[in-house]
């Protein structure tokens, strides 16, 4: 039997995406309006439900199995990162923002450091630009592997028993973390990027380790497709589920794989190149269906593309210095210029931006992180009404939210 692979797009479901009345068009939080007879069940999904990928609470009004209205309550993981960044110096901020999107810390560091560099007009050396690109692509594969495992776990027993796909993807993600450990000394929160470049050069034997790791993962992506994409139950649970309308997604600021799965061909890496992306050729996968299956296809294609980029880059990193400035030893030793900057990078979840106002001291006056997941979660009040409770779980999983960056 031929095995289906996610390279080819599945057929888009017929008909336009059903439009949903704007949530606030209804009188807010007044169950009487929806439910004069008292027949609806009010249910809290989360904050401790495992399929909410963290601590996210959605209040659902259910008519039997079908959701009538959904009101999300983010903020359970709010840690005041932006207030902390006000009090910390520029040198101390990258290790804090590592913890925002804790699945792709490298790209978080990249976003804030690029904003500081733009603010101070610091030119990053070419070798460091390539190292940053390499790290970002390595991290993207790891992030998508975590999404793939948890997404399959959301559908539980349908995919051959609970956590089996999860175990497979985490085995591979572990080897990626090992690569980062060899490179930066830390598996998760690296604190390796700094204003003007990087702190750590790649060690001896790193290229060989990365090549071995990513070639293994490339072979395994075929197995993931066989395990998940080829599964009839997976197809029936994702096809046509959670369809995102491209116009609505753009109004909400939804970006990354979700927007690309709805037919918008936009990727900051290609359209507003940063780091070394301007010198690379990047294929941007796009699907038009907008459902959960399309988002799976886009992420899998992105993963394969990132693996290709990593394997291309690892042999072609130019020689030279890795940092434009002298390494800073004291936290207050780096003083920024006054001004304002906004810099966005394309992380695994979309446009990850940093808006910074500086007043010429060693601290930023105001720093705002623009997290892609926060915008994606704003889709929930539009996607949930009309779908069953089990479909809401699938939709939530396919949006790939990281609550650490939703709530910050």
């Amino acid at each position, binding site marked *: 039997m031929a095995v289906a692979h996610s390279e080819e797009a599945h057929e888009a479901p017929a008909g336009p995406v059903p439009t949903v009345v*704007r949530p*606030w068009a209804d009188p*807010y939080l007044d169950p009487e309006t929806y439910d004069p007879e008292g027949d609806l069940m009010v249910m809290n999904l989360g904050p401790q439900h495992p399929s909410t990928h963290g601590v996210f609470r959605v209040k659902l009004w259910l008519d039997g199995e079908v959701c009538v209205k959904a009101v999300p309550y*983010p*903020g359970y993981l*709010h840690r*005041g990162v*932006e*207030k*902390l960044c*006000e*009090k910390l110096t520029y040198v101390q901020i990258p290790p804090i923002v590592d913890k925002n999107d804790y699945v792709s810390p490298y790209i978080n560091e990249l976003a804030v450091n690029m904003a500081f560099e733009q603010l101070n007009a610091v030119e990053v050396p070419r070798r460091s630009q390539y190292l940053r690109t390499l790290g970002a692509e390595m991290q993207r594969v790891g992030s998508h592997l975590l999404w793939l495992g948890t997404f399959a776990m959301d559908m539980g027993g349908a995919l051959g028993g609970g956590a089996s796909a999860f175990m497979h993807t985490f085995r591979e993600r572990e080897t990626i973390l090992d690569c980062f450990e060899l490179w930066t000394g830390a598996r998760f929160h690296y604190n390796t990027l700094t204003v003007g470049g990087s702190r750590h050069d790649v060690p001896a034997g790193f290229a060989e380790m990365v090549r071995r790791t990513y070639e293994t993962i490339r072979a395994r992506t075929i197995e993931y497709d066989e395990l998940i994409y080829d599964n009839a139950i997976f197809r029936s649970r994702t096809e046509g589920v959670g369809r995102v309308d491209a*116009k*609505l997604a*753009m*109004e*909400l*600021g939804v*970006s990354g794989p979700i927007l690309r799965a709805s037919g*918008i*061909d*936009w*990727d900051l890496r*290609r*359209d*507003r190149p940063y780091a070394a992306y301007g010198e690379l050729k990047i294929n941007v996968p796009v699907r038009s269906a907008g459902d959960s299956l399309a988002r799976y296809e886009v992420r899998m294609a992105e993963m394969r593309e990132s693996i290709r980029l990593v394997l291309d880059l690892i042999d072609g990193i130019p020689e030279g210095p890795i940092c434009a400035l002298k390494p800073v030893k004291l936290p207050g030793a780096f003083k920024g210029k006054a001004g*304002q900057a*906004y810099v*966005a990078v394309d992380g695994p979840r979309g*446009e990850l*931006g940093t*808006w910074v*106002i500086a007043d010429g001291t060693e601290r930023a*006056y*105001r720093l*705002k992180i*623009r997290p892609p997941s*926060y*915008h994606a979660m*704003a889709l929930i009040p539009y996607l949930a009404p009309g779908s069953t409770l089990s479909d809401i779980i699938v939709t939530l999983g396919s949006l790939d939210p990281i609550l650490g960056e939703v*709530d*910050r």
Partner: protein
Amino acid sequence: MSTPDDLASLLREGFDLEPADPLTVDRSRVVELARSLKGIGFEYFSYCAAAHYPATDADPDRTVVEYRLRRLPRDEVAFRVWVPTGESTPSLCGVFAGADWQEREQYDLVGTVFADHPDLRRIMLPEDWEGHPLRRDYAIDTRHHPWR
């Protein structure tokens, strides 16, 4: 980043503004500006962010609110409004659905009030939280109700 011709002519002719990053507009025209920009294709709502400036000799206590829109794939435009504390700025919820959560977050953390926002509640902090943490006069080490 050069400004596209249609954007520059819209700003010059419709709003008497020179292209800049960010533009500064008057509160009374911000909804009209957002709607016109959406009309020429700036349909992607990137973010809304606010910052607080305490009173100085020259200026009253105020916040600045910045919006950024994009016309995919390459063009972007940012505009900001100044809001004196105690007054409000019109909400963009009627133009961009994404302004809903974004403005709620800025209201919650910075304390800017958005007029005509359909649902202006706190989003990050508990409903009974006192004060707005990202204001400059909100000390990071002060204890606040109810977590004393």
